């Protein structure tokens, strides 16, 4: 049997689990303890098959589904296998966690949730397998719809319904752009298979149109500026495993789509496409991280952080396009390797962090950072495992985030070889922007971890917080193990990613990297830059050990006397700690023009002082609200046609008929 067949069996298995969920609609125990772990096992199988497929030749299949004479074409190549691996491997951790997470009374019955969840997984896997526009769009829409229903699990809350609507709206705007893009790509041949699109060579103007449509369409799903507004609404609304799946995996299908269209289906690339992607990516990343730093809801914070990471991915893709357009294959491969590394790294650490917020939410019932704190003692597993995710997310060695951001910066440093002097001057600025983003991301993660887990509990009820269940822990352990392994062994991973870049740009850095052994990572040459994660880990470990010993020996060993007045701090209370608002305040000041901020400061003699600050997105007021008003105005005009009388509706048809007959006659 072909690998593709095995993968299809896994996908069919997910669908079967979903149907089994329908059969046991309200049996929470069965759904959670049997179906979700089975889904995780299937995810593991998918990851294994996908990994094997990376080293295999492309395989194709035709599924006799869909409309008559219009079957689904499927194709498994290196690119789809890579994303299948991401879906499978991340899906394992999330499914295991979900088995311990979903419980009674969350709005949608558990069986239905199980169906939607597995349908979502299956449709994502099918999206990356699709080899014609028809199958792709059907699966893309299935993905959007199943995730919409997952987001609106708690559909009794009006805010959640609104978030779901916004998500669905933007997803469909994107889907229309993608559909138009495929329409341009088939170049009037009427054949919508990807093989035909690959064979066409479009004139430059139409190629640019197709590329821009693809950027818009996939960007809407990924959450680039200014189509990002659904992310911070939908992610907090969804249950945590769903947020993890959406942020960690679904956003990546958009990256897959852009790679497929931009590098595979469109033949020759133009350099300004790369510049456009770079600009959009950088703006998105900066916007995301700045907003993320001032959030006070832990899931919104992570959602904005996802926007930032998507921005970084777009920057990587932009560099890849730029280098590729100038024929610099090796550098293009380096930038793409950085982006793909970040795809898998982000899938692991962002899922991990979203799941951790889920554990915190279940155990405390709080999402607001202002009411959490000191959970490290209550939930040590979740805290330590989130620490791994937080470090990876901040791009600190020796975790996965560092490798990808380092590779990205490396590829920036090579940009000075570009033949365009204007671009050469611009690049240092962009590299500085990336550095700023990385630093702010670190700041945000310090805030996230510090406010939730460190310090003292800010609310009395936090003392009753219970630790996460064993299955939840298992899911978190799986994902954090992924973060650690990706950070410690970049060379084998890059060897695998090499297969994808070979496919996309006809070159890779696998051979260069392998030349230095499997421990030392040097993307171009040893003289230029190299990184040895294990050595780093050893040094970090030794430094920590040394510091601990020294502190214990010299600081705690000293004779200490308690001062009589205790510097005015006879007792510390939780209210003396730095709050989430306080921690984000400098960023709020520095980047003030970016926010639309309303502040209420208490008067000096207020008996019950209240401090309130609301931060909104400018884009709401610049783009979305005017659009909404325009739509409403048009709808009111059109609404005049709707008189509610059947005779008038019939008259409309009658007049239309007469006019059409007249037209047909003349």
């Amino acid at each position, binding site marked *: 049997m072909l690998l593709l067949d095995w993968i299809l069996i896994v996908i069919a298995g997910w669908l079967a689990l979903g149907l089994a969920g329908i059969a046991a609609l309200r049996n929470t125990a069965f759904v959670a303890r049997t179906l979700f772990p089975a889904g995780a096992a299937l995810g593991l199988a998918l990851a294994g098959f996908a990994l094997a497929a990376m080293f295999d030749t492309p395989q194709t299949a035709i599924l006799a589904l869909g409309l008559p004479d219009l079957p689904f074409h499927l194709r498994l190549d290196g690119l789809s296998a890579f994303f299948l691996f991401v879906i499978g491997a991340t899906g394992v951790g999330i499914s295991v966690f979900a088995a311990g997470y979903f419980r009674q009374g969350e709005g949608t019955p558990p069986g239905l949730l199980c169906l939607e969840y597995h349908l979502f997984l299956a449709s994502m896997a099918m999206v990356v397998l699709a080899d014609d526009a028809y199958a792709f769009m059907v699966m893309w829409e299935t993905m959007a719809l199943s995730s919409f229903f997952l987001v609106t699990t708690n559909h009794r809350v009006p805010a959640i319904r609104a978030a779901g609507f916004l998500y669905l709206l933007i997803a469909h705007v994107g889907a229309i752009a993608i559909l138009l893009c495929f329409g341009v790509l088939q170049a009037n041949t009427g054949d919508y298979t990807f093989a035909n699109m690959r064979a066409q060579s479009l004139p430059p103007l139409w190629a640019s149109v197709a590329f821009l449509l693809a950027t818009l369409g996939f960007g809407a799903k990924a959450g680039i500026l200014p189509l990002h507004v659904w992310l911070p609404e939908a992610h907090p609304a969804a249950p945590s495993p769903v947020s993890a799946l959406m942020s960690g995996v679904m956003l990546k299908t958009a990256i897959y789509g852009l790679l497929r269209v931009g590098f595979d289906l469109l033949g020759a690339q133009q350099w300004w496409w790369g510049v456009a992607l770079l600009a959009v990516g950088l703006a998105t990343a900066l916007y995301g991280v700045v907003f993320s730093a001032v959030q006070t809801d832990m899931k919104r914070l992570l959602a904005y952080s996802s926007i930032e990471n998507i921005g970084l991915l777009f920057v990587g893709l932009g560099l890849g396009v730029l280098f590729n357009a100038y024929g610099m294959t090796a550098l293009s491969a380096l930038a793409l390797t950085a982006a793909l590394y970040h795809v898998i790294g982000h899938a692991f650490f962002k899922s991990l962090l979203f799941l951790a917020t889920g554990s915190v939410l279940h155990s405390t019932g709080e999402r607001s950072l202002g009411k959490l704190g000191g959970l490290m003692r209550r939930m040590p597993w979740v805290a330590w495992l989130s620490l791994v995710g937080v470090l990876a997310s901040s791009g600190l060695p020796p975790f996965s985030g560092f490798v990808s951001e380092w590779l990205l910066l490396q590829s920036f440093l090579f940009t000075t070889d570009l033949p365009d002097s204007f671009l050469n001057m611009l690049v240092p600025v962009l590299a500085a922007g990336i550095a700023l983003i990385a630093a702010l991301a670190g700041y945000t993660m310090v805030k996230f971890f510090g406010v939730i887990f460190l310090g003292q509990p800010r609310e009395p009820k936090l003392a009753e917080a219970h630790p996460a269940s064993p299955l939840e822990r298992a899911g978190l352990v799986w994902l954090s193990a992924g973060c650690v392994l990706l950070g410690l062994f970049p060379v084998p991973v890059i060897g695998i990613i090499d297969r994808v870049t070979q496919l996309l740009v006809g070159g890779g850095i696998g051979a260069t990297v392998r030349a230095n052994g499997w421990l030392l990572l040097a993307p171009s040459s040893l003289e230029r830059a190299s990184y040895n994660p294990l050595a780093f880990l050893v040094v970090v470990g030794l430094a920590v050990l040394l510091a601990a010993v020294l502190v214990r020996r010299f600081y705690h060993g000293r004779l200490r006397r308690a001062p009589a007045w205790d510097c005015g701090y006879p007792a510390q209370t939780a209210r003396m700690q730095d709050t989430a608002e306080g921690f984000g305040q400098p960023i709020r000041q520095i980047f003030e023009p970016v926010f639309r901020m309303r502040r209420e400061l208490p008067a000096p003699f207020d008996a019950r002082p209240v401090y309130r600050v609301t931060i909104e997105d400018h884009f709401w007021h610049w783009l979305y609200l005017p659009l909404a008003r325009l739509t409403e105005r048009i709808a009111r005009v059109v609404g005049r046609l*709707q*008189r*509610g*009388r*059947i*005779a008038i509706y*019939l*008259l409309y*048809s*009658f007049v239309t*008929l*007469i006019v059409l*007959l*007249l037209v047909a*006659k003349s």
Partner: protein
Amino acid sequence: MTSLLAQSINLFAVVLLVLAFAMIAQRRILTLIHLFTLQGAALAAATLIVGFLTGQHHLYYSAAMTFVLKVILIPILLHRVIERLNVRWDVETLFNIPTTMLIGIVLVIFAFNLAAPIAGLSASIARGTLGIALACVLLSFLMMIVRAKAVPQVIGFLSMENGLFFAATAATSGMPMIVELGIAFDVLVGILILGVFMFQIREQFDSLDIRHLEKLKED
């Protein structure tokens, strides 16, 4: 004999048209149903004759189907509906009847004008009647527009289907059997659904006046 039969097609066509006008002019629902039954009978007879003259035997089946459906089954259903709803009395129209009749005449002229070039292309024996068939469709449509109650509208709808059927027979010696079967089935299902709707409308508004449906409009 043959030419006499060919002439009789024109006769039945004229009967159809006159019945369509009569339906526009008729206020009483019971009489409307009788007129509709007559129209169905004329249609069945015309189809039978076209089938005999052209030697296309599938038209016999469609004639039989038309007869069973439109002369027996649907009128029985309609009778039962008006009995159950108790709406045999006069119905008001939205426009007064003479005006409607005048509009109807304009429509007939329009239909004939429209059908002339199409009929020239057709080789069918009944091609001269295409204009009449189109006029029947338009007149029935007009009837649906001007009636305020649900039952006459349903009859208008069914009568429009009669016109369409006749147009198909006139222009191309009938549609393929499978299409006709499909349409016949649609009509039957349609009448059942509309019957349910009529009961529902009555239930909701205590009247079959569809002007009440305006309340359903969202402001």
